[in-house]
């Protein structure tokens, strides 16, 4: 388990906890366990990389961490709240406030502008208009897209789109950022840029970052590495 001494001031606070979590996909009569009895803690202010072979259950675990999916068995605690005890709408609000998602395929909404894409999460949290627009503008400037605010996602390069999606994940100022193969669709140079960005968020702003990757070079950016194999945790390592 990650025992951090130096990194963040909040080290030691548990942000997210899995307790004997199983995820079993049922396909007709056949049951296929994707996660088997996972118990793990993610500390506030940690940078976690989840690695493992294809099909080892990385995305499944990520979806559970992000409260996008529910476990078949076991319990998940986010900020000490059992998420299965929350109503749908409370869970959605918690997700909106606490978690920012970065997807491999960016997952931007194609029909609206960069600006509106980044603004979107704030609208669900019912921010007031002025505040929301200021935040959106600031964050877009921060990721270097000041000149692309009113373009549609299709008019941007892959790297730019991923920066939009990073901006969208940051705009609500979440405690935890989840990135499932954030560089998967990018070339190595752009991919590294994205990683540097995440690293900076962790280092300088104390965000908790959980990233799925199968690129061991990128995993080196992380502080803690969780290795999955066939739905089980093979190893957890920290580099200090």
């Amino acid at each position, binding site marked *: 388990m990650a025992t951090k001494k130096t990194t963040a001031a909040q080290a030691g606070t548990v942000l997210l906890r899995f307790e004997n979590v199983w995820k079993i996909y049922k396909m007709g009569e056949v049951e296929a366990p994707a996660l088997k009895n996972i118990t793990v803690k993610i500390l506030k202010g940690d940078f976690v990389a989840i690695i493992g072979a294809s099909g080892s259950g990385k995305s499944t675990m990520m979806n559970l961490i992000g409260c*996008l999916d529910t476990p078949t068995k076991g319990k998940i605690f986010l900020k000490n709240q059992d998420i299965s005890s929350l109503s749908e*709408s409370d869970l*959605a609000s918690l*997700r*909106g406030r606490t978690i920012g998602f970065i997807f491999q395929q960016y*997952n*931007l909404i194609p*029909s609206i502008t960069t600006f509106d894409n980044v603004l*979107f999460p704030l609208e*669900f949290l019912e921010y007031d208009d002025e505040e929301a627009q200021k935040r959106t503008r600031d964050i877009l400037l921060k990721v270097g897209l000041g000149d692309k605010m009113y373009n549609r996602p299709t008019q941007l390069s892959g790297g730019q789109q991923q920066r939009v999606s990073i901006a969208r994940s940051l705009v609500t100022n979440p405690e935890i950022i989840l990135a499932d193969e954030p560089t998967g669709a990018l070339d190595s140079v752009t991919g590294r840029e994205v990683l540097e960005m995440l690293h900076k968020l962790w280092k300088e702003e104390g965000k908790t970052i959980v990233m799925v990757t199968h690129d061991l070079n990128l995993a080196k950016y992380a502080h803690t590495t969780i290795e999955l194999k066939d739905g089980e945790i093979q190893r957890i390592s920290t580099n200090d």
Partner: protein
Amino acid sequence: MKLRKCLKHAFEMVLHSKIRSWLTILGIVIGVASVIAIMSISSGMQTVVSNQMGNLGGDILTLSAGASRGGNMFGPGGDRGGSGGASATNKTPELTRTDVQALKSLPDLKLIDTEIRGTVTISYLGKSGKVSLTGVDPAVWSKITTLTIAQGRMLDSADQNVVVIEGGLANNYFGKPVGINQMITISGSAFRVVGIVDDTGNGIYMPINMAYQEITDKTTGVYDSIVIKVKDESQLDATINKTTAKLIAVRHVTAKKPDFSLTSSKQMQATRSAMMSTMNNFLLAIAAVSLIVGAVGVANTMFTSVLEKTKEIGIMKAIGARNKDVLSIFLMNSALIGLVGGIIGIMFGIVLSGLLPVLMGETGMLRGGTLVSLNSVFLAIGVSVVIGILAGAIPAYRASKLKPVDALRYE
């Protein structure tokens, strides 16, 4: 999410929607346009009827033979020159001179006009056709009819071989207009036109004694109807009762089984409105069916749209959308489709109701033109929005219930 924001996103969805959505909107457009057109025609018809009734006043009674058949669409006294007159055979009850004598003995009645009706062949400048002819009492008719003279004069008690014709016959029927003092031929005999009445119909009026010769199946002294003007309109009901009693006595029938019907213009109006509302309801039902078809189209589009947007729904949920946010956005989207369809439909409907009288010709029913009321506009908008919401309800609900992870995985 605030409703205002939901509305904004719903609006963006409509703006960026594919041709399919616009086709869906077309379904609503057609439905709403036909409802508006039908409602406007019916209010136009209502205006015509109330105008006619206004002219008539409540002081006219129409007596016809046979038990009550209700009113007839073409007005009391056959002023519209309709072919509604019963062609009496010997077995059926008749109106005769006896009845007229009886009526004349009643002090409450002011004027009595005897009429017969039939169809005759008319020719002018080598062209001919069949039109309806009304034989009237030339001394009384001009004082009792609602028609107004446009050129020339009404019939006079001394008139013999003369006719008064309606405007439609005068102006449009034979390639060339028929003028005052010109001769027209009716079943071989020549008649001089002395008057043209302000009306678009094709009817002819002539003294009843001449009409007996032209309408071959009528017996002299037998009338199709007797039009009566009462002295005091405020005593209408009492007058009707007295007149009925008198007729029962002279015709040797019982009050329970009268062989005649005496209708006032008021009753006629009631009958006519009843008939019109039946017809309106029928037409509206047809229009409603087309609206329902439009609604099914909206539902279909919404289902497809939800499928198409599954991934976006997943994204929205990942970034904090609650089920009810997704529900509101999709419901408002379909409500907007309904609204846009409704508004375009109303515009088409207004154009259509303006064109209809032109397209269909100035037939009796559209004579008064059409009238698009503000009520029908609001009703149409309301109905189309409600239809949009109803049609979108199930797809929107399904969209809102999607599990984020499943929605995100959808390609």
